[in-house]
């Protein structure tokens, strides 16, 4: 009984662990996307200061 329970818990545990890594990666990608967007906005702002006439 104990061995069977252990085997099933290992399976569920490994799935949960992998799902957690996927969720953590998703959060990281979200943060990267925000940072990249900020970077793009900052680059645009910098460009507008450098070339005010072109705006």
């Amino acid at each position, binding site marked *: 009984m104990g*061995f069977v329970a252990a*085997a099933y818990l*290992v399976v569920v545990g*490994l799935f949960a662990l*992998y799902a957690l890594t996927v969720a953590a*990666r*998703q959060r990281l990608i979200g943060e990267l996307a925000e940072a*990249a967007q900020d970077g793009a906005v900052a680059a645009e702002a910098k460009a507008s200061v450098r070339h005010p006439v072109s705006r």
Partner: protein
Amino acid sequence: MRLLLISAGLLMIVGMTWALALAPDEAIQGFPQRIMYVHVPSVLMTYLALGLCFVGSALFLWRGDRRWDRLAHVCGELGVLFVTMTLATGTIWGRPVWGTWWTWDARLTTTLMLWFIYVGYLVVRAWAPGTRGARAAAVIGVIGILDLPLIHWSAILLRTLHPQPTVFRPEGPALPASMLAPLGVNVAAFLAIFLVLLFLRLRQERTLDRLVTMVEGA
């Protein structure tokens, strides 16, 4: 995607309940035989994941298209997850049935080799990011698949403690319908989980590639 996720959850609950509470006890092994209902699906998903990793790796080496590399990478990762599950459930089953957690049996040893090969695949990817690392990993992805037929035939051609195949045999499955049905549900559950994880990870890798292109272009 949401429908697939709900189906995976439901199939998992039904499959595990059926396997643990409703399936009959096996005459010789008794209760520990129920580990087979999660062990066999793990093996099948390992074969599927690493088969796709091989296809992705080979096509990436041939065409150089990053999409194939993404498929190979994600499937390599999933392959390690399922081969870990296979080894873990196998050793837990071995203790009550064989009286030992581990023995250097042909099938067990070749399966452990498989784990090392694909952990190596992921280590190469992590240590050498970019196209060079992807190409080196793809070579491992192509060569590593050679271990799969070794694993499959080791229990048939060599003297081994591991049980002979009872489901995928030329003569047809040796299991009774009362055991085959819960096994089928569990295989479907594992397949649904595999697909959910595959699609999620592929989407993440695609987004990451777009972000890298965006940052590099800025």
